[in-house]
């Protein structure tokens, strides 16, 4: 069985069918991209996978476990991390602290232990700090570790967000439009970071608008249009698919 198995997922908002009957697998170790024009239901799909809101029907299996009905924090604990299209930094915290929040599920100090600084929390705290610093170095923004995260440049915030997601030590990383708002240089940079992440053995599922990025880095692509899956395959095949071309270039 694939790492992530999406089966007949369906979402209705009132009378609007945002996602209709979408199924596809995500195999371990690959970068899989979901593309489609605006309003194709990509982000909706993501929100259902990560538990932000429930699907109307259908199911999602992650490592063989059904995710429907699970809350985001429970999904996170299973090893699925995500980023957001409009970056959600924790404002008022440094870049390092942002990444340290990402270590939340990997650590266990509770309310009382934290307040009284129990000796066993010291080690954990140090480990979190080291690991977070390591990740910032991996994503090449270690010099901004002590800067307030919300005052960083957009591209740097993306990197911090990626580091934060990686801090969760995820098996699967969901990236919601990682190139949104970035210029072509920054986009290429993010693309390089994503392949770097894949090479660490982390499976990546991304939703993207930017075709150049997707074609460069994806191992497999799913195309959504008006909530329905219209194509799935290797980048080269997708590029030649007449139906996909019709959507992206217009009817005529």
């Amino acid at each position, binding site marked *: 069985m694939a790492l992530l198995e999406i089966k007949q997922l369906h979402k209705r908002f009132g009378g609007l069918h945002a996602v209709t009957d979408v199924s596809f697998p995500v195999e371990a170790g690959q970068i899989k991209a979901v593309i489609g024009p605006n309003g194709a239901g990509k982000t909706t799909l993501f929100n259902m996978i*990560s538990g932000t809101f429930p699907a109307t029907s259908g199911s999602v299996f992650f490592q063989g476990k059904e995710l429907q009905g699970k809350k985001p924090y429970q999904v*996170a604990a299973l090893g699925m991390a995500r980023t*957001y299209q409009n970056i*959600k930094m924790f404002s008022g915290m440094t870049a390092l602290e942002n990444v340290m929040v990402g270590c939340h599920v990997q650590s266990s100090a509770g309310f009382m232990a934290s307040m009284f600084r129990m000796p066993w929390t010291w080690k954990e705290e140090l480990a979190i700090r080291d690991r977070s610093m390591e990740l910032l170095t991996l994503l090449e923004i270690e010099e901004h570790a002590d800067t*307030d995260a919300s005052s960083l440049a957009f591209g740097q915030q993306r990197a911090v967000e990626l580091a934060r997601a990686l801090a969760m030590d995820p098996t699967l990383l969901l990236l919601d439009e990682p190139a949104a708002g970035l210029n072509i240089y920054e986009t290429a940079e993010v693309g390089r970071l994503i392949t770097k992440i894949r090479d660490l053995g982390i499976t990546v599922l991304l939703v993207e608008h930017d075709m150049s990025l997707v074609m460069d880095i994806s191992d497999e692509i799913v195309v959504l249009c008006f909530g329905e899956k219209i194509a799935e395959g290797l980048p080269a095949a997708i590029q030649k698919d007449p139906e996909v071309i019709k959507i992206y270039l217009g009817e005529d």
Partner: protein
Amino acid sequence: MKKLLLILPLLACVIAIQVVCSSTDTLYYLTQMTMSAYYSLLIIGLCVLMGYAGQISLGHAGFFAIGGYISAGLTTHSLIPFKDNALVQFLDSSGLLLAGQTLYGEELLVVSPGLACAVAIIAAAVIAVFIGIPVLKLKGHYLAMATLGFGIIIYRVVLAVEYFGEADGISEVPAFPLFAGLSVSGSFGDRVSNYYIAWGILLLGLILLLNLIDSRVGRGLRGIHGSEEAADAMGVHTARFKLQTFVLSAVFAAVAGVFLTHYNGGIGPSEAGVMKSVRYVAIVAVGGMANLWGALLMGVVLNFLSLRGVFGSYDDAVFGLILIVIMLFAPNGILSISFRHRLMQLFGKGKQKRDGEA
């Protein structure tokens, strides 16, 4: 750890104030400083709830009152009529009750302050859990109104229930002996020792909260405030953290209530009033919401001035005005960088240096 070192200068100030007051024969200032310290204990607890967990509470005077009133009630109301009750007999034989005499020489049997304190704090915590579970699901105005409603109910209860002394409150609350001859009481000779007890408790509370903020849990809380959705996706159990913080701040309020009641020797319904809750919120806001040091400083200064009667009959008005002015012009508190920045610009020091302190 670095942040904790800031405690030392504060401790030095605390000692300096005592030395100055003792040597200039102005010990009466210590009385208000002691009371301010207890109020500030509540305020730093509320600061963590509002500034870090991002949840407003307009009912914290209610928790203060729960602590104070329960402790006062248990240590003043005689259990003689229930002498034959099994529980009373059990407590008596465990040494948890105190026998004594009233002014008129009647036999008196009351709960010992230690047990009363424990009961009061546990009661506040339990009530906070039951109120917190539904209330913290609410946001914005709804949360504000719901906690305001809770505060009003507590106020009505202490005003209406005979056990709590109705409009008169409870007086003649006995001293609370701690250890080594120290006791929380308003008696003249204990003024200096009580000043240190109060500040000791406050500093202990401050250290605990500073630890909390700079920890896994604290980062989770600040994450909730930054972006609840993202914190949730990071695996932070937001609902539970909010509830735990609510209970923690309620316990801080109850501890403040218990100790201040023993120190003052009584408690009245005004302690439970809505104005008190609003005042606490105002002080946290002035201090800068997510700034424990600011909350502590403002808590001590403003309460001290208020208790000294500096504001006269405009006491409540001053706090109302502070609330509005701060929220209009410096929503991040008067210690915030942006406000200092604006002030500097105002006074012509055009080129401001940005210090890295957050």
